[in-house]
């Protein structure tokens, strides 16, 4: 399971929460170029991780957002077409969920990175699907 290197992950999560590159650089005491490079590398790694999951389970990719670290897949399970939602969680890696079976800690994470403004499942699904 993919986990971003610690320093890269710290930069990525700060950006996902909406901080500007220049503010991240100032907060971490590194150059803006280093922040930019870390973000680019993080995005490439996240894209590859989400695509690898889709390939492993033969799911179709519907959406991959490396900025906020989530993906939407469409796949077949026991002959039924299902939606799968995956999130990159700092320190934990990628967690995937079927349909609307999204636990509360994912809602909290989605709130923190600005995918949703209120901790509601319907709101999260709509945000992921639009």
């Amino acid at each position, binding site marked *: 399971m993919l986990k971003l290197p610690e320093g890269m992950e710290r930069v990525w999560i700060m950006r996902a929460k909406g901080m500007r590159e220049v503010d991240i650089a100032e907060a971490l005491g590194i150059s803006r170029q280093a922040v930019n490079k870390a973000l*680019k*590398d993080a*995005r*490439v*790694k996240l*894209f*590859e991780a989400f*695509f690898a999951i889709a390939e492993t389970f033969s799911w*179709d*990719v*519907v*959406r*991959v*957002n*490396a*900025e906020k670290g989530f993906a*939407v897949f*469409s796949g077949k399970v026991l002959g039924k077409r299902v939606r799968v939602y995956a999130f990159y969680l700092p320190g934990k890696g990628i967690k995937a969920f079927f349909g609307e079976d999204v636990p509360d800690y994912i809602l909290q994470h989605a709130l923190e990175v600005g995918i949703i403004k209120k901790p509601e499942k319907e709101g999260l699904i*709509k945000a992921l*699907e*639009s």
Partner: protein
Amino acid sequence: MRLKLSAFPVRGAPLFFLAVSLIGGALGVLIQAAKGENFAWVFPYLLVFSAPLGAELNGKELVLLHGFGLIRERIPLDSIEEVSILSRLEHGTVARHFRAYAALWVLLVAFAVVYLLLPGEKNPIGAYFAPLVISMYTVLFLILMLPRKRRIVYLSAFIALAFLVLYPLVFIGPETLLPGVVFGFFILWAVRTFQSEELILLVADGKSYLLAYRDGNEFLNLLRRVANAQAP
């Protein structure tokens, strides 16, 4: 690598040329009719600069081509933040990501409605061009804005076809029948083409791009293969 891909003129220079061409064309006909000067024919030619001409995918970037390849939009692969197949999303709409582009289409339909309501007997702009513009733009607008709502698109295409053929037939005469049918076939072609291609949203460095490609999976695999080659 050259890709047979359509990049919509949703931003930058291609959107500028599209807007000048369509708004200029719509207003130009009206000004021309009032002043008698013949200049409105210039505007449709500007459409060429917004027309997509495929894309190039090299080791580091995706280059979208417009207007004979004179206008190039370069997207570094490591700057891509999001890839979505809009036509696979439950609530995917183009309007949410491309407000200026959506507003342009709405404005054009509004222009056409105004033309339709223009006073005067045998007003060819109102009775002939307006149904043409309303029908074609409405169908294209719905195809782009509601890529997953096939029933709505097919129903609107049927209504648009009937309006396009019948309105000029009633208000002008049978001589409008043949061109009406020809433009009707264009509507059918547009619906069929857009329903068989997938609409792809690409966000890179905060800028959104809209692409159409025959197979979303194939496009994603191509991007992935090229991006992997330069992965850290």
